[in-house]
């Protein structure tokens, strides 16, 4: 027994990587295996904020992430955008991350294609329709130095963004007629995996007081929970789980819900490795005597 653990303690870590890859691919192929998702209050709040809006209302969505975070954050963007467009809610979109415009442009095109098709969500039939640039959404594009851009957007969108991403002056976009600044929108939803979230809290919410919600990568989720308790955030989507919760609430299964099956199996695999590693550590330490450490 002890000899086995001693061998395990010296196991090349690449066997662990291989095991995770095998379990990941195998569990991915179990398409019929559904994982139940318990929806948290902080995810429900974001869904409700959009679901309860009148048709024609405007929200602000900031797509502040690069391709390295798209695994967790793209499903959130897709789910929120599709939900808003289906409900007739209009969106002002920006990207305060360098590669964000590509992410936003890709999401807008994909969702515009999807909204053309008749679909039923939560028992309500939504007929397909065209999503029109400048009417249903305005994509303002990217500007560097997020703190300065957020402060400027608090005054007027036209200061940092004289024209939208496609070069049309904001004055010529029907959507922007009555939308001057961040406070003119019903709520601000920021999807990011970086410290841009801090800037939105300090230079946006604290200064302007608009309702703010975050969609964050798993790595940064835990550190923003205190802002929920203090009321600085009204909702929070955490990593792929948060995206899956939103997809479930919107009755629109996508990549996040599909990925939760693999999350389940891979988490169990990692837990098993952690248990084996800890038991092995204590068993081999006893054998080496009270001095213990390697």
């Amino acid at each position: 027994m002890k000899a086995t653990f001693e061998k395990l303690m010296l196991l090349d870590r690449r066997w662990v990587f291989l095991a995770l890859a095998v379990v990941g691919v195998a569990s991915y192929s179990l398409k019929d295996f559904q994982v139940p998702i318990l929806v948290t209050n902080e995810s429900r709040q974001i869904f409700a904020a959009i679901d309860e809006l009148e048709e024609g209302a405007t929200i602000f969505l900031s797509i502040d992430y690069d391709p390295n975070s798209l695994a967790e954050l793209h499903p959130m963007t897709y789910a929120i955008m599709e939900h808003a467009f289906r409900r007739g809610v209009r969106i002002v979109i920006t990207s305060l991350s360098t590669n964000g415009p590509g992410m936003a442009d890709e999401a807008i095109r994909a969702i515009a294609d999807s909204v053309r098709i008749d679909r039923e969500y939560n028992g309500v039939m939504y007929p397909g329709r065209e999503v029109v640039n400048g009417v249903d959404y305005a994509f303002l594009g990217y500007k560097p130095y997020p703190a300065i851009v957020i402060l400027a957007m608090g005054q007027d969108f036209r200061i940092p963004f004289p024209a939208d991403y496609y070069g049309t002056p904001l004055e010529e976009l029907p959507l922007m007629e009555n939308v001057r600044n961040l406070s003119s929108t019903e709520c601000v939803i920021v999807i990011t995996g970086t410290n841009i979230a801090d800037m939105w809290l300090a230079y946006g919410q604290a200064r302007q007081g608009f309702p703010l919600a975050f969609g964050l990568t798993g790595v940064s989720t835990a550190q923003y929970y205190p802002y929920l308790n203090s009321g600085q955030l009204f909702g929070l989507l955490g990593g792929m789980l948060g995206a899956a919760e939103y997809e479930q609430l919107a009755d629109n299964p996508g990549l996040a819900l599909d990925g939760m099956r693999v999350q389940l199996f891979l988490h169990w695999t990692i837990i098993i490795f952690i248990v084996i590693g800890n038991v092995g550590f204590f068993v081999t330490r006893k054998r080496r005597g009270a001095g213990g450490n390697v």
Partner: protein
Amino acid sequence: MEFWNFFWTTVAAFFTLATFSFLYKDNPLYKIAEHLVVGVSAGFFVMVLWHTTLVPNLIDRLADGRWIYLIPLVLGLMMWFRFSKKLSWMSRYPMAVYIGIGAGVAIPLEMATKVIRQLNGMMRPIDWENFFGAGWLDVTAGFSGILLFVGAIAGLIYFFFSKAHTGVFGGVAKFGLWILMLGFGASFGFTVMARISLLINRIQFLDNEWISNAFDSSNEHYTVMYPILFWLVILGLVAYIVYEIIAYRRRGPEETAGTT
């Protein structure tokens, strides 16, 4: 999917697999992917900065005769004097403006966001009517409010080192340590989920966008080139694996392992 779309998807698939090859050991395929990311990102950033910022926010405004924008232009140009030993003092003026404005704006807002509003949140009245909340550890519930208050005080006491951590004080400090550990555990759990999400996304990409399209004969643009491209990438990877096996047999595990 049109051919060129599939071609670039194949390139993306190749670099995905090349990046994953680092999990075995550092190798030329991984190096190519790494250098390409750095180069493309830098080039992309320069072009984005030019087209989305300098042209609309500076050059176009100057062209419209808004001469006030000469001030940021001059300040920006003065920054470049940092590269001159004799004239580097000139870059201190724009830096002074930048730091002065930055600190003036940031200090009150950061204080309000991260200290005052957080203190308010911690000291809110206990909601007895909604004591257990809507679900497990609902942050709006009265019970959560008590837990957060006690946890915050205990956590602060753990970092109070002017008094020995003994007796009741030591007990509270130990409770604070446990609260901190719970926080770190939650962060670690979320981090594991994040890393697994990256793997899941790549599996979904390879399956949904690459493998499926490589053999989708119902695609109107489908030609024999689709599976040929697919198999070229697979053969390249197999060739690399065979090369590694031969190297392993010739030189032994010590020289080829590297990541243990």
